[in-house]
C-alpha cells in the first residue's frame, strides 16, 4: 500500500480536499435553500445557522486549499518538461491529447472561480446570518453563486479524475 509523494499529494488535492468541499457544499446548499420562514420556525432558523457557519467556512477553507495545492504542488509535476510527465505523455498520443488541450486547460482555469464564489457566499451567510430568511433576493443570489462554485469545482474534479486515470502522476 505504498504511495509516492506525488501520488499522496494528488490524493490530498483531489480525493480528500475536493471531496470535503463537495460534501460541505451539499449541506450548505440545503441549509441556505431552506432558510425561509415558510419552511422553518424562528427557532429552526437559529438552530441551523451554527451548522451553516461551520459548513460554509469548511467549504471555503477546503476549496482554497484544493486550488492552492493543485496549482503549486501537483500541477508542476503534471506539466514538468520531461517526456514522462503526464502532460508530455498525453500530448504525444493523438488519441489522448484532448485530455490535456481541452480537459486540463479548462480544469486548471475554471477551478479558480470556485474559491472566489464560495468565499462570497460564506461572507454573505456570516454577515447576514438569520436575516437571510427575510432577504429573498440576497439569499437567491447566494444560492446562485453557491451552485456556480459547485459547477466550477465539479468540472475541475471530474476532469482531474479522468486525466489522472489517462496519465497518472507517479
Amino acid at each position, binding site marked *: 500500500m505504498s504511495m509516492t509523494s506525488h501520488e499522496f499529494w494528488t490524493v490530498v488535492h483531489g480525493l480528500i480536499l475536493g471531496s470535503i468541499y463537495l460534501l460541505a457544499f451539499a449541506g450548505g446548499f440545503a441549509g441556505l435553500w431552506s432558510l425561509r420562514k415558510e419552511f422553518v420556525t424562528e427557532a429552526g432558523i437559529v438552530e441551523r445557522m451554527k451548522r451553516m457557519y461551520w459548513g460554509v467556512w469548511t467549504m471555503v477553507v477546503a476549496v482554497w486549499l484544493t486550488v492552492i495545492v493543485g496549482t503549486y504542488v501537483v500541477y508542476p509535476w503534471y506539466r514538468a518538461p520531461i517526456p514522462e510527465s503526464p502532460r508530455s505523455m498525453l500530448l504525444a498520443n493523438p488519441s489522448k491529447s484532448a485530455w490535456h488541450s481541452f480537459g486540463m*486547460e479548462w480544469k*486548471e*482555469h475554471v477551478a*479558480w472561480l470556485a474559491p472566489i464564489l464560495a468565499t462570497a457566499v460564506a461572507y454573505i451567510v456570516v454577515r447576514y446570518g438569520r436575516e437571510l*430568511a427575510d432577504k429573498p*433576493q440576497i439569499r437567491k443570489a447566494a444560492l446562485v453563486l453557491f451552485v456556480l462554485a459547485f459547477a466550477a469545482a465539479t468540472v475541475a474534479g471530474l476532469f482531474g479524475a479522468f486525466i489522472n486515470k489517462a496519465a497518472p502522476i507517479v
Partner: protein
Amino acid sequence: MATSNRNGEADAALLAAGIGCFAMGLLTLLSEVSESIGGMLGWSSAVGALSGKSTLSVIVWLVCWFLLHMAWRGRALDDAKIAKLSYVLIGLGFLGTFPPFWHIF
C-alpha cells in the same frame, strides 16, 4: 425580526466575485491568444502562466471587494440589478476559461 433593504455589503461581495471571475476568464483568454501576455504572466517557472493569471485575478477580486465594500456598506441599492450584472460577469468568466472559445480569436 426586522428586515432592511440596506444590503450594500452583500452587493459588494456579489459584484466583486463577478469581477474576479471575469478577470480570470479575461486573463486566460488573453494569455492564450497572445504569447507575449502569456509570457508576462509566468510568475512561477514551475507553474507557468497559471500563476500570474490566478494571482492577478485574486488581487483584482480582493481590491474590488474592498473598494465596493467601502463605497456601498450600509446603503440600499438595486440588489436585483447588481446580482444580474454579477451573473453576467461570472458567465463571461466561465466562457473565458473554456478552451474552444479561445479558438474563435
